[in-house]
C-alpha cells in the first residue's frame, strides 16, 4: 500500500485521491484527506494534518474526519475540514464551524456579455466600490437598527425581501431557502448584536470580495443551461459572511464552553476544538444562536446583491431584473454546522462504529460541521431547489483574483464520500505576512489590469498584497480532484473582470 509521512503523521492511500490517517491512540475515528499527491504535499507543509488528527478526538465523531482538497491550517479544526458528529450522543463545536459563521458565496446571473462590459470596467468597478461598503468602519447598506437586526436574525432572506431588498426567486435559490428555521436570536449576545449594527450589508476585508466575472468555459452543457450559464456571459460573485456579529457569537460560546464544560475541554488536544455536549443546554443555545448568525449572513449577502443590482441598473441604464436578468443563481455557505441525516456505519447495537465493529449501515442525525467546505448535494435530493433538483445543487468555488472561479454541481459520490461536501476555494498557500513581504498591493493591482484586464479596487493595499494570486493553491487542481472524486462536478469556469475588496 502506498503511504506518505509528514512530521510523523502517516497516511495510507486508500484509493486515488483518498488518503487515510489510521485510527490510533485517543482518536475516535480515522481521518481522511481527499487530495491529489500534489495537493497532499502542500497540505503536509503546515499543521493541517495534526489539526485533522486532533479533530478525531471530538466525542461522537462518526466515520473519518475529512479534509477537502483545498485544506489548510486553521485554528483548532483545519480549514477545509468536515466533521460529522452524532447529534444524540456527540457534541457540537463552534471552532469546527469557524468564527465567520455562514461565510459563503453567491453568484448572480446577468444577460450581459463580456463585450457589453469591455471598455466600461473602470466605471463599473468605481461605481461598485462607491456603493458597496467594504473594509473596516465603512458601515452597511442599511442602518442596522434593533428591528432590522432582529428581523435578519430571525427570518433571514425572507425578512430582506419583505423589506424590499430582493425578489421572491432569491429565496428559493439560497441554501435552506435563506432561513434557518431553528434560529434563536435570543441566544445571540447583545455584544454580538452591537457589532452587527454597523455592518449589515458589508463585505468586510481579508479574503472577502465582490467580483464581476465572465464565463470562460462550460464543461457540462446541460447543467450549465439549468443554471443559466453560457460562455461569454457576465456574472457577479459575492463572498462574505456574518461579520463581527458571527465572530463575536463564536467567541461568546467558546468562552461559555470553557467555563461550563471544562471537563470535556480538558479531554481535547486543542482548546479551539471546545465543544458543547449534545443535548446540553449550551449545545441547544449555540445551535440556535448559530442559526441566527447564518440568517444574518444571508441577509448581508442579500443586501449587497440588492445594491449591486442598483449599480448595474445605473451603469447600464437598464432595469437590473427585466433588462439585465440579474437573478440569483445560488447562495451557499462554506462555514456552517447543521443537523443532517446521513447513512453511517453502525455496530450490532446500532451505535455508530468504525473498523471491525461496524456490521451494517443506518441513517443517523448528525451535526455536520463544514469549516471551509461547501455543501454539495447531488441530483434528486429534496434540499436542492426544485429548479436544479434534476441536475444537482450548484456549488460556487471562489478562486484568487488572477485565477478565476468555478461553478460545480453536487456530485453523485458526495453523500458516500464526504457527507455531501466538497472544497470551498483555492486554499491559502502563503501566510499573510510573507505575502506582504513578497508583493506590493499597487503592483499586484497594476499587473492584473495591464496583463489580464482585471480591474481591482480595494480599501487597503495590504489586503491586495495578501490576496495576490500567488498566495493561493492551484484552484484548477482543487477542482480537478473534486470532479474526479465525484463529490463536486465541474460545470463552468469564470474569470475576473472587476474586483472590489476591503
Amino acid at each position, binding site marked *: 500500500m502506498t503511504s506518505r509521512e509528514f512530521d510523523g503523521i502517516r497516511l495510507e492511500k486508500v484509493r486515488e485521491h483518498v488518503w487515510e490517517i489510521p485510527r490510533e491512540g485517543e482518536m475516535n475515528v480515522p481521518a481522511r484527506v481527499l487530495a491529489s499527491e500534489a495537493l497532499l504535499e502542500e497540505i503536509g507543509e*503546515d499543521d493541517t494534518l495534526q489539526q485533522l488528527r486532533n479533530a478525531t478526538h471530538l466525542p461522537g465523531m462518526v466515520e473519518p474526519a475529512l479534509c477537502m482538497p483545498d485544506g*489548510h*491550517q*486553521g*485554528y*483548532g479544526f483545519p*480549514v477545509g475540514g468536515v466533521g460529522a458528529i452524532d447529534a444524540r450522543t456527540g457534541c457540537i463545536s463552534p471552532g469546527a464551524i469557524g*468564527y*465567520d459563521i455562514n461565510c459563503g458565496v453567491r453568484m448572480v446571473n446577468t444577460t450581459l456579455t463580456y463585450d457589453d462590459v469591455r471598455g466600461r470596467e473602470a466605471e463599473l468597478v468605481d461605481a461598485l466600490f462607491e456603493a458597496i461598503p467594504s*473594509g*473596516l*468602519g465603512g458601515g452597511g447598506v442599511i442602518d442596522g437598527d434593533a428591528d432590522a437586526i432582529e428581523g435578519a436574525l430571525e427570518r433571514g432572506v425572507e425578512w430582506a425581501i419583505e423589506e424590499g431588498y430582493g425578489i421572491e426567486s432569491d429565496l428559493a435559490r439560497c441554501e435552506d431557502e435563506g432561513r434557518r428555521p431553528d434560529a434563536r436570536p435570543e441566544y445571540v449576545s447583545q*455584544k454580538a448584536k*452591537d*457589532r452587527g449594527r*454597523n*455592518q449589515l450589508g458589508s463585505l*468586510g*476585508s*481579508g479574503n472577502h470580495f465582490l467580483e464581476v466575472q465572465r464565463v470562460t468555459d462550460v464543461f457540462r452543457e446541460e447543467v450549465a443551461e439549468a443554471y443559466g450559464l453560457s460562455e461569454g456571459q457576465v456574472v457577479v460573485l459575492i463572498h462574505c459572511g456574518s461579520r*463581527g456579529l458571527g*465572530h*463575536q457569537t*463564536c*467567541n461568546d460560546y*467558546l*468562552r461559555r464552553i*470553557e*467555563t461550563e464544560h471544562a471537563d470535556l475541554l480538558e479531554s481535547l488536544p*486543542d*482548546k*479551539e476544538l*471546545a465543544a458543547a455536549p449534545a443535548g446540553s443546554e449550551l449545545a441547544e443555545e449555540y445551535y440556535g444562536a448559530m442559526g441566527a448568525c447564518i440568517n444574518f449572513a444571508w441577509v448581508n449577502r442579500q443586501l449587497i446583491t440588492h445594491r449591486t443590482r442598483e449599480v448595474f441598473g445605473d451603469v447600464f441604464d437598464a432595469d437590473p431584473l427585466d433588462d439585465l436578468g440579474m437573478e440569483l443563481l445560488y447562495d451557499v455557505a462554506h462555514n456552517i454546522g447543521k443537523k443532517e441525516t446521513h447513512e453511517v456505519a453502525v455496530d450490532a447495537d446500532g451505535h455508530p462504529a468504525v473498523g471491525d465493529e461496524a456490521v451494517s449501515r443506518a441513517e443517523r442525525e448528525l451535526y455536520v460541521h463544514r469549516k471551509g467546505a461547501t455543501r454539495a448535494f447531488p441530483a434528486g435530493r429534496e434540499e436542492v431547489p426544485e429548479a436544479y433538483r434534476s441536475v444537482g445543487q450548484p456549488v460556487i468555488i471562489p478562486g484568487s483574483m488572477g485565477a478565476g472561479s468555478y461553478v460545480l454541481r453536487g456530485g453523485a459520490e458526495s453523500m458516500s464520500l464526504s457527507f455531501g461536501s466538497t472544497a470551498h476555494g483555492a486554499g*491559502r*498557500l*502563503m*501566510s*499573510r*505576512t*510573507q505575502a506582504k513581504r513578497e508583493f506590493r498591493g499597487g503592483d499586484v493591482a497594476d499587473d492584473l489590469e495591464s496583463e489580464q484586464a482585471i480591474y481591482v479596487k480595494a*480599501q*487597503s*493595499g*495590504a*489586503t491586495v498584497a*495578501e490576496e495576490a494570486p500567488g498566495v493561493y493553491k492551484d484552484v484548477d487542481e482543487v477542482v480537478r480532484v473534486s470532479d474526479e472524486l465525484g463529490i463536486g462536478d465541474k460545470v463552468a469556469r469564470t474569470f475576473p473582470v472587476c474586483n472590489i475588496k*476591503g
Partner: protein
Amino acid sequence: MTYELRDHTADVAVEATAPTLSALFAAVADGLTAASCESVPAEGGDRFAIEEAAESREALLFDYLDRLIYERDVRLVLPADHECRVTPPGNAAGSAWRVEADARGVPLDAVSAREIKAVTYSEMTLERREGGDDGDGGDGEWYAYVVFDV
C-alpha cells in the same frame, strides 16, 4: 516590551515579551494594532478605558483582546497605544484576574486598516520564562503567542 508579527498560513500571530504581565498585555494589544494597520497616525483620537475580569490569565488575555475588537467595531476606532494594569485574584472566594486598560481610539476613517476577525485560543501561550527581570524584582520575563483570525 516588544512584539513581532509571525507567519501563520491563513491568519496572523503576535509574539510578545515584556518584563511584567501588564506590559505583556499591552504589547500583545500593540501587536493586534500592528496586524490591523501598517501605519497608525502618531496623533488623533480620544483615549477610552475598559475593564475585564476572568478566571485565569489566559482567559483574561483572550477577553481583553476580544473586547478591543468589539470596541473597534462599536466605536468605529482602531485601538492603539495600549496601557494595561493586570491584577491577580485576591483572597476572596470567586475572585478573578482583572485588567484595567486604556487605549487611543484612532477613527477608522483616518487609517487604512484591515479587519482582524477574532482572537483565538489556537496555540495560545502565556507564561513566565527564566532570565531577565520580571519587573517585580525577580528573574524572568513574560512571553505570549496569540493567533488572530483574519
